[in-house]
């Protein structure tokens, strides 16, 4: 019965979203608070219905109810419980339900938000309702996750073993919460365009939503990258794969939006541009969903595999984004950019940040869509990592070199000489770090040494800014501490995010240049040398897992002195259902580095004994690559907790009391 109950709830949610859209818009048009209140109620009820449907699907997975098509196709009784639950969003249909769960969840949060002018709020809730109608409608009519089978199978098809991983179980919820969080920003933009007024206050209201979405997206992308690193066994962490690019594009635009919204909030400038970014961010989220879901990019011909759904998603994207941008074209000329600023000012640095991020987004978009464009011209082709690295590297370098100056410059007209003076120490340390790396690390690589220097520059710049605010070395230490304690959390959040960026840049530059690889065919007792380490394959035994058989290798890692660093246990697993084989990578962390060992296929050695292909890497400083984005995400959350962002609500409560 649960599946039918869930289906009913979905139908109800569709009706409620429609009601939310119509009633809120009507309420705004007639200036009727009862109607807008009813719209908010519909938003809450729609969320409740989607939650019930989502609960029903998870229940069907947990109880392995194979009479539900989606469960039969994606689950298995032997699967560990965590992956049964995660299986609920492991398929196309389930992930769309997760998307709608997030969409209506944000709608409900919006309905509960206080301190917004009622007319703007009513229109925002109405727009969110319209998005709900589109996506829930798509789910109900074209991608229903709760459809029953007439004759249920005894056993399910199981979830792909590669996806059976804790990081990947958590990755989609974070990513989707981020993607869909941008829908609220989109709705705010549409509402403000209809109202024809975008000002400092609007930017302040949008900022927490943009921050939340950005932080969640950052964490979601990092989890995905971490999964690719340790689960795929390729020894890389970013592949410029279309699926990764799909998540990177909204992130880049959301980053630009956070920065331009600050200019709009503090200076009333760039209003039209900020709204444009708000529309772009969710459009790219939807584009990402379309590209990933339709399979259009894996093979340019896969479009034909499921043309109905692909075209429907494209239609939804076109309708939502098209109306948004048409509205923008119509109303944006009404938005006046009032305040002026000098070439050396905080505004200028933030505008350059936005220009670079826009150019990088264009790079990723052009590279991702290039195969489609060529296909339309009757040619074949595509781009790979070398293209992205060539274009994105120099662009980002420009932004990173300017970045530390931004927070230190004053609004309107900055003091270039003063900033140079304040950043002198950070610049000196960064240059020294780059020179030291260039001189000491073999083989010499100037570009990577420069990259590490840039990372140090970013961290040093962020620390200089904190010291500056604390009047460190100028005031007494007691006074400095008092000033530090008085800094708003938004300032700490920004510094933490910039430090995280620096940490990431250092790690990416170092790991990219000085990663070591060694591959040999080893029989038991054989060894290979990996940099200064020696790896000995002690034994390979057979082992039985919960839903797989494994060849379990024991690899002893020793340092030059002969001391054992660790005993790594890479596995090669064969899953009974589906017959797929995957590698369980063994990782020995050593400080910031990882020794990364993969047990490959079994071969015959010359003497006829069994031997295995053992691939191994040293990934130096790789931990920084994942630590950096984590710090950035934490910075976002810290900013979100700034009382200035909640002040509107707090004030209101104060006034009512």
């Amino acid at each position: 019965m649960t599946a039918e109950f869930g289906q009913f709830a979905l139908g109800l949610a569709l009706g409620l979203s429609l009601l939310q859209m119509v009633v809120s818009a009507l309420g705004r048009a007639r200036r009727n608070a009862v109607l807008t209140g009813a719209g908010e109620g519909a938003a809450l009820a729609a969320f409740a219905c989607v939650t019930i449907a989502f609960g029903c699907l998870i229940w069907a997975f947990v109880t392995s109810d194979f009479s539900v098509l989606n469960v039969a196709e994606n689950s298995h009784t032997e699967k560990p419980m965590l992956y049964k639950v995660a299986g609920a969003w492991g398929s196309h249909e389930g992930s769309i339900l997760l998307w709608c769960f997030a969409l209506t969840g944000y709608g409900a949060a919006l309905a509960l938000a206080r301190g917004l002018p009622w007319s703007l709020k009513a229109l925002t809730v109405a727009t969110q309702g319209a998005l709900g109608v589109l996506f829930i409608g798509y789910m109900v009519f074209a991608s229903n996750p709760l459809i029953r089978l007439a004759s249920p199978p005894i056993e399910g098809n199981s979830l792909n073993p590669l996806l059976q991983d804790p990081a990947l179980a958590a990755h989609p919820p974070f990513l989707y919460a981020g993607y869909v969080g941008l829908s609220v920003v989109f709705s705010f933009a549409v509402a403000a365009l209809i109202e024809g007024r975008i000002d400092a206050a609007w930017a302040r209201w949008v900022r927490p939503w943009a921050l939340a979405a950005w932080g969640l997206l950052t964490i979601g992308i990092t989890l995905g990258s971490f999964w690719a690193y340790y689960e795929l066994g390729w020894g890389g962490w970013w592949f410029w794969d279309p699926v990764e690019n799909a998540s990177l594009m909204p992130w880049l635009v959301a980053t630009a939006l956070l920065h331009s919204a600050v200019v709009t909030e503090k200076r009333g400038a760039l209003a039209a541009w900020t709204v444009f970014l708000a529309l772009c961010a969710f459009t790219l989220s939807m584009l990402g969903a379309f590209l990933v879901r339709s399979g259009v990019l894996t093979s340019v011909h896969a479009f034909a595999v499921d043309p109905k759904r692909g075209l429907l998603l494209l239609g939804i994207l076109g309708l939502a984004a098209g109306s948004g941008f048409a509205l923008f074209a119509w109303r944006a000329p009404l938005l006046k950019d009032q305040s002026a600023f000098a070439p050396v000012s905080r505004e200028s640095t933030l505008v350059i940040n936005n220009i670079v991020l826009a150019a990088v987004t264009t790079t990723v978009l052009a590279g991702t869509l290039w195969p489609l464009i060529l296909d339309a011209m009757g040619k074949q082709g595509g781009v790979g990592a070398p293209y992205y690295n060539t274009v994105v590297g120099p662009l980002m370098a420009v932004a990173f070199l300017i970045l530390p100056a931004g927070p230190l410059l004053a609004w309107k007209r900055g003091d270039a000489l003063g900033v140079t003076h304040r950043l002198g120490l950070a610049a000196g340390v960064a240059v020294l770090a780059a020179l030291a790396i260039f001189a000491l690390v073999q083989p010499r690589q100037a570009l990577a040494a420069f990259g590490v220097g840039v990372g140090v520059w970013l961290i040093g710049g962020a620390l200089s800014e904190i010291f500056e605010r604390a009047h460190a070395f100028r005031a007494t230490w007691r006074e400095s501490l008092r000033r530090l304690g008085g800094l708003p959390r938004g300032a700490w959040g920004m510094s933490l995010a910039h430090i995280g960026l620096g940490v990431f840049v250092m790690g990416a530059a170092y790991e990219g240049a000085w990663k070591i690889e060694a591959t040999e065919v080893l029989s038991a007792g054989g060894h290979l040398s990996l940099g200064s380490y020696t790896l000995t394959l002690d034994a390979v035994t057979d082992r039985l897992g919960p839903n797989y058989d494994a060849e379990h290798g024991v690899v002893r890692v020793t340092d030059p002195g002969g001391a054992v660093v660790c005993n790594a246990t890479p596995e090669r697993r064969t899953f009974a259902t589906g017959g797929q084989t995957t590698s369980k990578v063994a990782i020995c962390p050593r400080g910031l580095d990882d020794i990364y060992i993969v047990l490959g296929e079994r071969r015959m050695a010359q003497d006829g004994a069994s031997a295995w292909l053992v691939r191994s890497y040293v990934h130096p400083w790789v931990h920084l690559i994942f630590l950096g984005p984590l710090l950035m995400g934490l910075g976002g959350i810290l900013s979100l907790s700034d009382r200035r962002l909640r002040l509107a609500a707090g004030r209101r409560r104060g006034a009512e009391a």
Partner: protein
Amino acid sequence: MIGMTPRRLAIVLGAILCVAASADPAERLADPSAEARARALFQETRCLVCQGQSIDDSDAELAHDLRQIIRAQVAAGRSPGQIRTFLTARYGDYVLMRPPFSWSNAALWASPFLVGLVGLGLLASRLRRTPPADVQVLSVEEDERLARFAREDTPEGGPDVHAPA
């Protein structure tokens, strides 16, 4: 990554099963520096029959053959440029993972920099505009609140521009 289409999964799985095929000791050149030069070329060369993979990653037969051809040419002392020319003469530009600078690829290479230049142009034109006398950004009432708020919220007084509903 989750919820990939079956086709996409098949491709990813295919890639995993034949990962880093080029590192196979059975294939590689005796001279490590020549092997390193060959590997660098592999990473730039598309495996024409696999989607989006370089011949460094793929163990398709064609990728294997191409690797051996490139290794032989590297061992014979040909430069990377000569080898690239040889590859494009034989398979077209598509064989390169990094598309060359050419008119048909102009949109791809130029678009990011065009966006950057347009942005800089807009910024420059904005900066050249004569700065108007400080325009009232906020309403009078909002400005009062701002001043009050700035007093309580040092050192970074953001404007409290909340207007009651």
